[in-house]
């Protein structure tokens, strides 16, 4: 605004007019980030939309098929399986992770010996690579050498010796259980952060009034943690829809597509059987599903909590 160049302003050459110049500086700060972003994030989206209209192996010239891939997708039974699995994944990871994560955060929010240690134990699974987690749990669930099978044989609980990852009926649920082990600590950390924002005097006053733990949690803390719940819900939905690595290492989406998720199926189409056009179609649909579900949540609950958004 003060553009009649005072003696102390150190300005470089360039159009010396207020708002314009300001904008240029602003853009200068943004440009490197935007350039990277445009090349590796925006362009791929455009690429996918375009490729989704082709029958294309990724190498030779593709043949235009319009909405053909989308039509084929609707009658693809594996696509239906991925939708069902995603729905299971959303419900069966978000709820237990939040419930256990909250209880842990509540227990660890007090001064307590070994608090940092407990916190680390629960959070470490979330920092491990899905490659590590996947291979470790393959071993735990192995019907011959696995820990569960050992326990089962020792105690006579024969059901523990089943091949949970190898059985199409249970594979997706076994993968979901592993996900809960991995990510509960993340929910715990979010709730710890949320609890920190609550004025301790509120809790103290409630204690003095003789409020029980249960009442404190359900009547006072839960409503105050609204933005934390919503952040976790949104992150959980997006994270579930995006699940790839863990399933890829644990089951590769098998047996016979039983634990297939949209991203693993997309990857197989594009890289293993060279159906790049169809893979792109699945990608576009996945992106649309993600956007629609996030936007409708923002609509329903207000956009304030987007600020707390992670991942």
């Amino acid at each position, binding site marked *: 605004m003060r553009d009649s160049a005072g003696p102390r302003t150190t300005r470089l050459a360039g159009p010396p007019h207020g708002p314009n110049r300001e904008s240029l500086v602003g853009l200068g700060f943004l440009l490197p980030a935007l350039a990277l*972003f445009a090349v590796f994030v925006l362009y791929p989206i455009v690429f996918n939309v375009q490729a989704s209209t082709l029958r294309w192996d990724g190498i030779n010239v593709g043949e235009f098929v319009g909405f053909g891939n989308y039509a084929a997708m609707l009658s693809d039974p594996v696509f239906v399986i991925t939708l069902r699995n995603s729905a299971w994944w959303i419900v069966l990871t978000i709820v237990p992770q939040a419930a256990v994560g909250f209880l842990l955060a509540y227990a660890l929010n007090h001064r307590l010996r070994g608090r940092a240690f407990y916190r680390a134990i629960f959070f470490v699974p979330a920092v491990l690579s899905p490659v590590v987690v996947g291979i470790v749990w393959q071993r*735990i669930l192995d019907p011959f050498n*696995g*820990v569960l*099978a050992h326990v089962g044989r020792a105690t006579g609980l024969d059901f523990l010796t089943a091949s949970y990852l190898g059985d199409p009926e249970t594979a997706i649920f076994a993968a979901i259980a592993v996900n809960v082990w991995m990510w*509960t600590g993340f929910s715990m950390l979010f709730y*710890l952060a949320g609890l*920190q924002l609550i004025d301790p005097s509120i809790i103290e006053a409630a204690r003095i009034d003789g409020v029980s733990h249960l009442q404190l949690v359900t009547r006072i803390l839960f409503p105050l943690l609204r933005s934390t719940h919503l952040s976790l819900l949104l992150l959980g939905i997006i994270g579930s829809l995006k699940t790839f690595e863990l399933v890829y290492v644990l089951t590769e989406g098998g047996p016979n597509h039983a634990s297939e998720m949209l991203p693993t199926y997309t990857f197989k189409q594009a890289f293993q059987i060279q159906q790049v056009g169809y893979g792109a179609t699945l990608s576009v649909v996945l992106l649309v599903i993600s956007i629609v579900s996030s936007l409708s949540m923002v609509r329903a609950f207000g956009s304030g909590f987007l600020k707390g958004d992670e991942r």
Partner: protein
Amino acid sequence: MLTPLAVLWSLPLVMVIGLSLLPTSNPQTTAFGLLPAEPSLRNYVTIWEDNPILQHLVNSLLITVPSVALVVLLGSMAAFALARLRVPLKAVIFGVLILALILPMSSIVVAVFKILQALGLYDSRLGLVLVYAALGLPFAVIVIRTSFLAVPQEIYEAARIDGAGRFQIYWRIYLPMARPAIAVVVIWHTMMTWNDFLLPLVSLGDNDLKPLTLVPLAYRGTFLSQPGALFAILVLISLPIVAVFVLLQRHLVNGLSGAIK
């Protein structure tokens, strides 16, 4: 309630370390398959000698460290512009960034693979650094911007009146104040980059360039006969990332509560 749950949660961790000590000569286990009957450090020597493990470790570092640095630098600059400078179409830019948070990596790998080829960055660690940086930017911008917004606007005005350039204000005043947020970004991005295997799987053909996470997959056949060595590699993959977490965990909760609000 806490202790039993913590024991249950840590069993898989105990097992990784336990089985990494399982000698190939005696694959007997005890404690329900959690621990080797006859522990030995032999596997750690084996993986060091048999596979070019040091090279893979260096590759992981050469991919992770530059990409974290890039994300923090470019992300905080962009966050500064969005928080304090005049930028056209600010809302649109911010909206598009948020959009990218929900983009699954597996749905863009084909395109990224094509772009890297076109840029001559296929089979190159630099290519991976750039892609990870691009994918990590939205999260970094959102978290750091929130903490920049918490710095009173008056500080910015006052520094301007004192004749400080915008870059100086960003570098000297804002960046140091956003330390907790930056810690969150560093942990998050290190995790994302160090742990990922999808992108290197499709964009690196040369075995000498592959990061640690690809080793268990690349040498799967070899490891069938020596599970102990496989688990030793898993421990090696996990140690650096756990160390980063332990070093920065103090900031993590504070940084997150700044970001939630």
